[in-house]
């Protein structure tokens, strides 16, 4: 990822900021200039809560460049509770434990690094919602 695209996408990657169309109220992620539902200009930022569920998933064994060291890993379509469907890596979970409908939450993790000298790219991944132990 170049410095410019790294900078341009920082709010969506780090804080899950998309848009809500001011004309038809469609919930958009990632943010875009034109609403795909009503084709009006979409410029209203919306901060997603980061809670969702696994819509579908696949286990990746042959990974693209800069992701080889994660393989095997799970990529999922995650349905946010506000509506949008997005693609993200699942983390802190064994592939055999993933199922359709699994409740997940957003975490910010390392996505990739441009070698030992380049930028480190951070962004959203999803993990199973952690269990809570009993109150003390």
């Amino acid at each position, binding site marked *: 990822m170049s410095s410019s695209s790294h900078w341009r996408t920082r709010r969506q990657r780090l804080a899950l900021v998309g848009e809500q169309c001011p004309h038809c109220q469609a919930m958009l992620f990632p943010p875009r200039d034109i609403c795909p539902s009503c084709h009006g200009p979409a410029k209203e930022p919306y*901060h997603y809560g980061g809670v969702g569920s696994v819509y579908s998933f696949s286990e990746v064994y042959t990974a693209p460049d800069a992701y080889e060291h994660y393989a095997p890993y799970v990529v999922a379509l995650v349905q946010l509770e506000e509506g949008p469907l997005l693609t993200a890596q699942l*983390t802190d979970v064994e592939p055999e434990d993933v199922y359709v409908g699994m409740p997940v939450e957003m*975490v*910010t993790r*390392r996505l990739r690094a441009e070698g030992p000298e380049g930028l480190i790219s*951070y962004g959203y991944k999803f993990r199973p919602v*952690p269990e809570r*132990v009993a*109150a003390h």
Partner: protein
Amino acid sequence: MRPALPVGIVGYGGYVPRYRLPASEISRLWPSGGEDGPVSSKAVPGLDEDTVTMSIEAARNALDRAGIDPAQIGAVWVGSESHPYAVKPTSTIVAEAIGAVPHVLAADWQFACKAGTEALQAALGLVGSGMVRYGLAIGMDAAQGKPSDALEYTAAAGGAAILVGPAEEAVARCEGSVSYVTDTPDFWRRPGRTYPEHAGRFTGQPAYFAHSLAAARELLAELGWRPDELAHAVFHQPNVRFPTQAGQQLGLSRQQMALGLLSPEIGNAYAGSSLLGLVAALDGAAPEQRILQVSFGSGAGSDAFGWITTPLLPERQQLASTVRDYIARQRQIDYATYLRYRGQIVME
């Protein structure tokens, strides 16, 4: 030391990664004569975790408990000895992720294992002078120990975020703080080197104990607190023996140390260590309890803090994951997986 305005902790959050390396795995690889390891296991970050990602999660927990608009945060400071970049701040990435940019002070702090409490003292001062309403201080580390070195058993990952704000909104008021610092060369790392060096047993009496106990005693004397009046006491935890002995030398009971002593299960979280212990104590404390927190950083120095919990604490304890939640969420790994997760296996 005490700020001009009354201040305290308005939100707090810890983070411990999911993976645990048992001490038995290290002694299996590097037998050293049959001695038990200094901790039973240590917390290890996953492949996609580092000081930035762990700081973000701890900060989000602190914000969930505080319930404030992150745009009101006037400072985001991260103390660590494992910042992912040599040049480029951890704190700007954290501030962006939690929504505190752009009107915010942001900086990374360095003082071995007390970098986090140094940031906390500065935040108390900044909020206590009225310059900002809220300041976020984070101590976080993903520590590396040289393979086969004694530190490999304990060099762990984790830490905590403390959101400092006005005392009337606080779950714990700051009653005072003391720093005790000398030039004591017990542990260091030169630029460009992967692993730190240390002075063996010298890290004990002249370094850890001298600074921790002096800071603790001076603070207790300043506040007029007797050790038996403390509900909880938390020390820096490079192993189990040091904080346990420090507590004994102050006349503290096992019960006073229980909530905040995490090193037996997760190892030494370096700049996150005493802050994570403080957060674990806050997770379990009741209102109007006195808490002593003492950090230690090599090089060397200790920061001591006196906290008194408030009636606002119980309602905020369950607003985010507790340290115990994170410790319970664990998966044991073997030494080979540990090397992989720490990036020690060369792929190209």
